[in-house]
């Protein structure tokens, strides 16, 4: 409290004492938000002004970037040395292609239309399976989380089906669906579906009941509650489900493509093995890794954009 005086004034305006009481606390709250180097700014504005790039890079970020580079470099050095000296102690580098061979392969094949077709097939299947999983998993999860009877109805089936890995669905899926595309998308969907569903249910359960009561007493209908309270309240948990679901979806997709596929990066990689084209195997692997990285990065960015309030949530800073 800066001063007790205004509180004593009988002809008190509505705002003065309250701000005296809280103004002291406010800068503290906003101060802890930006990184340590920004302490020169006493009160962080709502939208901090962009300062030159170099000024905003902190020592901490430089160290983090250097360590990141070092770890990736180590991977390549081990790979390079292993293939250069054809190391053989239990693991065998005998047939492993060198980084340069893979690079060559990437230049030769990477821009060919056949390879790009494979990539496009995988991306299309992932997006289809993933978005169908969102379309079914999120609404169903919200309903299961909100209504006991819906949970009673669906949870037994879910508990039975959930432990079956998506890959185990491959033979059944081929029988079930009329064509190869549908069965691969189905397997991808299965991989993404359960993490999304269960995290959505969890998000609804974890929502503070007082927010639901606040929504109802402010006049929200049941439908409005779903749209304006339950969905945004469960959103952080839903995004956890999306991130996990995307990872499992890729695992499932690649396995499905390797087993039953035509086209796709998984198919490309397995075919390279069959054709004894070793550099292409590694190219396929790297492509899968990069695509997975891009997908989970996209989810993270979408999460940041859709949930800007999380930057201030308790526990968001270490």
């Amino acid at each position, binding site marked *: 409290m800066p001063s007790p005086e205004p509180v004593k004034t009988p002809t008190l305006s509505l705002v003065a004492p*309250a701000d005296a009481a*809280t103004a002291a606390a406010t800068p503290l709250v906003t101060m802890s938000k930006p990184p340590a180097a920004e302490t020169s700014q006493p009160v962080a504005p709502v939208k901090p002004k962009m300062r030159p790039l170099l000024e905003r890079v902190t020592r901490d970020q430089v160290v983090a970037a250097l360590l990141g580079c070092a770890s990736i470099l180590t991977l390549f050095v081990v790979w390079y040395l292993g293939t250069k000296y054809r190391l053989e102690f239990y693991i065998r580098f005998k047939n492993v292609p060198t980084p340069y061979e893979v690079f060559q392969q990437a230049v030769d094949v990477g821009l060919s239309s056949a390879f790009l077709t494979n990539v496009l097939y995988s991306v299309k299947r992932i997006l289809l399976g993933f978005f169908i999983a969102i379309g079914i998993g999120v609404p169903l999860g919200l309903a299961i989380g909100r209504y006991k009877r819906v949970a009673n109805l669906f949870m037994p089936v879910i508990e039975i089906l959930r432990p079956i890995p998506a890959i185990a669905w491959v033979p059944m899926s081929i029988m079930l669906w009329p064509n190869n595309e549908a069965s691969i998308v189905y397997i991808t969907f299965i991989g993404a579906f359960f993490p999304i569903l269960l995290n959505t249910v969890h998000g609804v359960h974890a929502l503070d009941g007082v927010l639901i*009561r*606040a929504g109802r*007493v402010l006049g929200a209908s049941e439908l409005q509650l779903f749209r*304006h309270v339950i969905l945004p*309240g469960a959103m952080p948990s839903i995004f956890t489900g999306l991130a996990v679901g995307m990872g499992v979806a890729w695992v499932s997709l690649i396995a499905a493509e390797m087993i039953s596929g035509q086209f796709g990066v998984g198919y490309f990689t397995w075919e390279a093995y069959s054709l004894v084209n070793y550099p292409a195997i590694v190219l396929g692997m790297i492509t899968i890794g990069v695509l997975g990285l891009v997908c989970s990065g996209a989810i993270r960015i979408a999460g940041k954009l859709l949930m800007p309030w999380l930057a201030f949530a308790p526990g968001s800073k270490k």
Partner: protein
Amino acid sequence: MDTQTGHVDVRNVGVVFGAGDTEVTAVNDVNLHVEPGEFVSLIGPSGCGKSTILSIVAGFLNPSSGAALCDGKPIAKPSSERGVVFQQYSLFPWLTVRKNVEFGLRMAGVDQSTRNVTARSLLDLAGLAAFENHYPDQLSGGMKQRIGIIRALATSPRVLLMDEPFGALDTQTRVVMQEILTNIWQQFRISVLFITHDIEESIFLSDRVYVMTARPGRIKAEIKVPLPRPRTPDMHDAPEFVELVHELKGLIREESLAAMAPEIKQGGLAGFGMKVGPQSVGEIYGSAPDALRKN
């Protein structure tokens, strides 16, 4: 605002939680009323059923017996006609301050520009105009509760129900919040049912104070506060104020002790170093034999 609406009537209300072995009678035969434009407090020891009463008036809970009416109509479910300020912080963390204030109007289908105007004027009133684009997690506890109050007022309810809204705040902030609330009330003249366990708070804010007994809660006493309006902080030192504090303290003390009576009998409180002498428990024993004998 029409001062003829906002009449709350709680008639012979009883609430029983659970069944069989776990049955708990939370409140028993409670009668109270709030007149249009009146500020009424409900005070009592913790666990006596204050929140239970408020839940019934809000429409979250149906009484096991008796009835609650608002302007003559039975209360069946929550409605924006009866605004609630909760004890816990209950702002939607995903909405900015202004969007939180607009929430009720948005649910009612009020258009964006009208919502904006209403929210801005309320934010001005609460001294929070500068924070309209902040998120709740960026604010102090006192600010959050002020927004909770104006969010509840935005839909122009007939009654405002407040459940220990300042209970989580530190003492200095609480005193300031009481002044802000009494000033806001002065402008709206809305009916308020205010729950607290803070004696001075209840006197400073209210026209009338109901005192509840320990569980199962009943209305033990009803006290009129003769202090003039508008209330100002210097009234804390007025002789009537001090006298009322003294009177209420006596009433509450009896109930708090009654609530703890089994422990006192087992010497529990003496074991915690509580002095059992003429100035403390002994005096109360003497002055409140009924309350203790009941248990």
